[in-house]
């Protein structure tokens, strides 16, 4: 399969008067055209920052560095603002987890979609409006023609998320990043949005990067899975392989937390909390919470290594040299 995007050795740090702690520490990943990659981890593990870094959208105060970012046949080590703009909305789009605040409150919904057509396809005002209504129809907004004339506050949460998806997909990007797209929504609406994403992915031949703290949700959608912990990918591989036989203790912990229908007894939970980025433990960042930690874990941060058809960063699997 063709590689759509590859990112090598991403670091994200925050500038503070007390130093520049890193929130993402050397993440490398690859997206193959047409696949769905699930990125999971507890909140604060750096998965959203990784996603934002793919579009150069980090908040002020955060800086990213990477060895290389490649999209199809283009390649940068330090993309300029113009490079980012050539990707955003045209090649890579993103849907955020805050549908309630991510639309401009004083602009008509249709206009917010039309803006993308006018920007990227140079459409005239009226053509862009028509295309915008069409797009809103496509994401399942009823009576799109009249709804397009309304303002965001007249839309429900689910409708706003549909609108944001319409904005993201208006110019047929190759890659859609969905960052916790359903977290803010009601359970019934969540299911509708996931169904919509699935359908659009099929219809438009999208590559999807789905980011969530909810392993169960990702398991329904993803082909491959990447698990992040404290700014690093700790396990990455095909969904079936990883879920069927998780190698990293953290992945196992996450999996044990999943509620199962008909299961008896108490729900397992991971002990402890994600460490703060300014106070990362020495060695493997997970070792204070790990039941299997041994001496080496406190000394050295394990690297991602090939283990039984997936990549794992854990000293339990061959201490290498």
């Amino acid at each position: 399969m063709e590689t759509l995007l590859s990112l090598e050795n991403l670091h994200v740090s925050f500038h503070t008067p007390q130093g520049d702690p890193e929130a993402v520490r050397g993440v490398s990943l690859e997206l193959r055209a047409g696949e769905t990659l699930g990125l999971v981890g507890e909140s604060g593990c750096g998965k959203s920052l990784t996603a934002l870094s793919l579009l150069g959208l980090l908040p002020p105060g955060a800086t990213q560095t990477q060895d290389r970012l490649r999209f199809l046949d283009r390649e940068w080590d330090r993309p300029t603002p113009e490079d980012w703009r050539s990707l955003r909305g045209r090649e890579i789009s993103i849907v955020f987890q805050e549908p309630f605040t991510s639309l401009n409150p004083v602009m008509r919904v249709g206009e917010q979609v039309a803006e993308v057509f006018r920007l990227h396809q140079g459409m005239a005002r009226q053509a862009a409006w028509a295309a915008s209504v069409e797009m809103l129809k496509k994401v399942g907004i009823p009576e799109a023609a009249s709804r397009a004339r309304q303002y965001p506050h007249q839309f429900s949460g689910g409708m706003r998320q549909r609108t944001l998806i319409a904005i993201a997909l208006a110019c047929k990007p190759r890659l859609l990043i969905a960052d916790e797209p359903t977290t803010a929504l009601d359970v019934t609406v969540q299911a509708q949005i996931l169904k919509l994403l699935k359908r659009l992915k099929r219809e438009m031949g999208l590559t999807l990067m789905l980011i969530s703290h909810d392993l169960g949700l990702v398991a329904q959608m993803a082909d491959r899975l990447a698990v992040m912990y404290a700014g690093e990918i700790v396990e990455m591989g095909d969904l079936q392989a990883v879920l069927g036989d998780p190698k990293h203790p953290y992945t196992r912990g996450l999996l044990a937390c999943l509620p199962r229908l008909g299961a008896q007894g108490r729900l397992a939970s991971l002990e402890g909390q994600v460490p703060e980025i300014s106070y990362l433990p020495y060695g493997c960042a997970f070792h204070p919470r790990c039941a299997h930690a041994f001496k080496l874990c406190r000394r050295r941060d394990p690297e991602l290594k090939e283990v039984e058809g997936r990549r794992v960063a854990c000293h339990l699997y061959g201490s290498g040299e």
Partner: protein
Amino acid sequence: MLLRYALKRALFSVPLLLGITLISFLVLHLAPGSPVSARGSLNPHISPESIRELRALYGLDKPLSTQYWDWLKRCAGFNFGDSFQDRQSVLSHILQALPATLLLNGVALLLVFGLGLPLGIFSAIRSGSPLDRAFTLSSFLAFSIPAFVLALFLQLVFGAWLGWFPISGFSSPWSMGQGWLAQAGDVLWHLVLPVWTTAFGAWVTVAQYMRNSTLEVLSQDYIRTAFAKGLGARRITLRHALPNALLPIITLLGLSVPGLVGGSFIIETIFAWPGMGRLGYEAAMNYDYPLVMGVVVMGAVLTVFGNLLADICYAVVDPRVRY
């Protein structure tokens, strides 16, 4: 929809207006001292009979509630009574003073918003830059200068020392009988220092307000969405950030309406500017109840009207309020 909203707001402001006039009325009439007491501008050797006569003349011998009711009834017909001092109608006094104040504060307001808004926006977009920091520092200094001290300093430097601008007054004697252009130029020349004084503090306030509002908006999620669309910084600022950042400024504009017409008595007194502020001040000093009440009512109506106007503008611009 909009009309109903406006009417509703207007209706709500009636009790507020009544409240303000009632309070002013009570403060005025319950406080010690009165136009007929010895502390007024009247003869201290006045006889008790003539005091009684005077009180009857002014209606001051009736119970307060009756006085207030009478006054209110007359107000409804735009009759604010006559000034105690010269028996001219209060309305004519106000109409004489209004243009000067409108001119002074209108020009000041234009300057304040015309310069304050762009500076605030610029300062926010370039947040943390030398320009931004210089602005923050200078606004700090500017807040420390009370208007009347600024007025005196300006008079001292530009009036007394440099002689560039007249120290006070509305026009020069020589301009009488000249062409209208010369007269207008003369008034403008007199306008410089009072306008500067009036605009100075407000200018910093508006710029700071705009700066904070813009910073606030720039950190919103929908700005991130706009960036994710691939829009350029200029379009995002103009099309997405500004319309949102300007919303709270409407309230600020509404709040400036009363000042626009009410004037500031300190500034107008210092510059001998024949406007509403000075009128009210002198009326208060002379216990001229009808005139004071006229000025107060004018001020109250304008305050309420300004707020109303701001609310309606808000509804026009912000779809969230309208529906």
